[in-house]
């Protein structure tokens, strides 16, 4: 689209945000009663739902069970109505498999799997509305769902995407900014220790700009952490009040 500037001269983006500003995030835990853990998150217009089952016995082939830790099985799917055009996505398609693998890598770093040998933890994430930052919304929703299920984790996993336009790093890209074709970085962070669980980019970015983009994404992930922390504390307090009196 000619003339669409992602970053105006005054420093405003297409939706009126500043360069390092996140979209509005709302999250809820314990959405479904029948699953072990569930959570729903809205990051701007991106809506994601995560459901966790486990730890339970290995389903399917028992030979895949790991003798000293739990197997984390992640599945990612997008609803047919999630994008601008209704598109039916087959279940095992490449994008979904890749996302599932990335989610698995992320959560194997955070969940204390040594406590559950020879068992399986299932994390299912579904994107209900995709407006950019799908991976980040999925990770944030899945973190809350794993916490809701009571599975011990080393730390929260908070994720955010970042891009680079006109010498400035932008945090939390929306669909319009992603479609513009610039470099995009997806980063998942364990905030307390500052360790990265996953860092992904498939674009070309000059080495000199990498540090700036990483810092923007890390700062945004920490902001997400502050928010999720508040949501979890609120949920725990409400649950204790319901059961306590």
């Amino acid at each position, binding site marked *: 689209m000619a003339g669409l500037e992602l970053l105006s001269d005054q420093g405003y983006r297409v939706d009126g945000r500043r360069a390092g500003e996140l979209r509005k995030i709302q999250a809820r835990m314990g959405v479904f009663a029948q699953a072990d853990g569930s959570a729903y998150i809205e990051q701007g217009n991106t809506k994601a739902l995560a459901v966790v089952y486990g730890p339970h016995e290995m389903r399917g082939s028992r030979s895949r069970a790991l003798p000293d830790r739990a197997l984390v099985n992640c599945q990612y799917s997008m609803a047919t109505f999630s994008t601008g055009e209704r598109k039916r996505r087959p279940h095992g398609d490449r994008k979904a498999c890749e996302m599932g693998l990335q989610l698995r890598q992320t959560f194997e770093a955070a969940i204390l799997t040594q406590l559950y040998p020879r068992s399986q933890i299932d994390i299912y994430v579904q994107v209900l509305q995709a407006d950019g930052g799908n991976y980040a919304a999925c990770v944030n929703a899945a973190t809350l769902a794993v916490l809701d299920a*009571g599975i011990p984790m080393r730390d929260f996993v908070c994720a955010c995407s970042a891009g680079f336009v006109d010498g400035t790093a932008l945090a939390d890209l929306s669909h319009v900014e992603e479609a513009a074709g610039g470099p995009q970085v997806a980063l998942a962070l364990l905030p*307390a220790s500052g360790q990265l669980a996953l860092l992904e980019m498939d674009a070309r970015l000059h080495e000199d700009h990498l540090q700036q983009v990483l810092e923007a994404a890390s700062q945004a992930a920490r902001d997400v952490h502050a928010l999720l922390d508040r949501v979890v504390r609120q949920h725990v307090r409400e649950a204790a009040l319901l059961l306590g009196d």
Partner: protein
Amino acid sequence: MAMAPPMRYCVPGERLCNLEEASPGSGTYTRHGYIFSSLSGCLVKTSDNGELPVVSVTRETESQMLPDVGTIVTCKVSSINSRFAKVHILYVGSTPLKNSFRGTIRKEDVRATEKDKVEIYKSFRPGDIVLAKVISLGDAQSNYLLTTAENELGVVVAHSESGGSSLLYPTKNCLFLSLGAEVFRWYPSAGVRCSVPGHTLKNSAK
């Protein structure tokens, strides 16, 4: 109503205290000499006299437990074979499981004495409730391995062969059921279940 001191809620990754001040309990992990929380819940600090207090994080709803080696489990026999009996593990200790796990009681693990003379058909029937102990988590080919070769373990509740509605119940050292002409008796610790036709017992010996 007197207000208890305000509960402290913690989230995973929150640093609770130093390893010198307390020792880690359930729901926590240690790193670099500090204790961190690994669950989202309430902080509980129990102080034993003389020893270091134990810091743990508890949730209102307990998460799924897994049978561990050495725990006593309650299971239900699902199928039998001449070499082993397959069971569904329903309770770990006294906690019911949301999803049942599968386990196997091999012929040589049924009782401690005369292991080669065990007949599975005479020891277990499908539908029996068994108290067993986990001896192994299993490997690539097998489920949880259980044993009943101890005094307190074995079949505790079963249906008799004659009538579907009569339940056999455990007495001091064996199970009795008086059903008119037939008495079924078996010894849980020996894992043997046998019928003694032709005898009547008015009161079961307790």
